[in-house]
């Protein structure tokens, strides 16, 4: 993620949206004697708490991407399907060019392929892809059985 950011930050706007914790510890266990690692974070209850968790995350992962903080009602998390982790590439017309979602949803290599295509096409998705309005039928927050 950091390597991709360093390579393309002049041509692409990278944003790390910090969403609600995927695997929070129980309230009161974070940072206390029972905390086993800096990642023992309780579910954030406010934007201020989320900002602190995001700062710990940046420090722990050693990334310098610009960070946005998702709303407490999870506008990005729900609108883009970012939970527990995800990637979305958007072109200059506001069209989705790539998305991934899941426990390993941060996919810089796949995103880079799409970004290369976009940059070769003036930042826009190739012709022939129709623009559809609005989000798709809401997907469940949890994985579904096939």
């Amino acid at each position, binding site marked *: 993620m950091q390597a991709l950011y360093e390579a393309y930050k002049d041509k692409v706007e990278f944003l790390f949206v910090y969403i609600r914790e995927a695997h929070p510890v129980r309230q009161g266990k974070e940072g206390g004697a029972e905390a086993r690692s800096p990642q023992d974070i309780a579910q954030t209850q406010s934007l201020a708490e989320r900002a602190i968790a995001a700062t710990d995350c940046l420090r722990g992962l050693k990334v310098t991407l610009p960070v946005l903080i998702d709303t407490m009602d999870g506008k990005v998390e729900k609108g883009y*399907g970012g939970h*527990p982790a995800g990637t979305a590439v958007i072109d200059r017309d506001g069209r989705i060019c790539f*998305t991934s979602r899941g426990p390993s949803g941060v996919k810089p290599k796949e995103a880079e392929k799409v970004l290369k295509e976009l940059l070769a096409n003036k930042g826009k998705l190739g012709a022939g892809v129709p623009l559809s309005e609005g989000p798709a039928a809401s997907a469940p927050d949890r994985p579904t059985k096939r």
Partner: protein
Amino acid sequence: MLQRVKRPELQLALVCVAAVLALLQMAAMPGDPSRRPGGRTWAPVLTVGQKAPDVELPRLALEKTEDGGVLGRVSSEKVKLSAVWAKKPVCLFMSSYT
């Protein structure tokens, strides 16, 4: 169950059989990377070509503290995604620390 089995060779054999069965199950799955063991998948919310949801979010502001640390707080500056993608393509990474 393993506690009842006294012989260590038998315990090891049972673990190996379980591992082989798990590998066979994973190998039998199609190449969809979003497919998870147990036949579960994370359905995408958006598809390629669809209009991206426009959201306005606050930035994380980082300030250096006197002891050399970094303090993060919610900035009063908000970022509207549509204003960003109008200038450059956008790559969003969404995650938490946990």
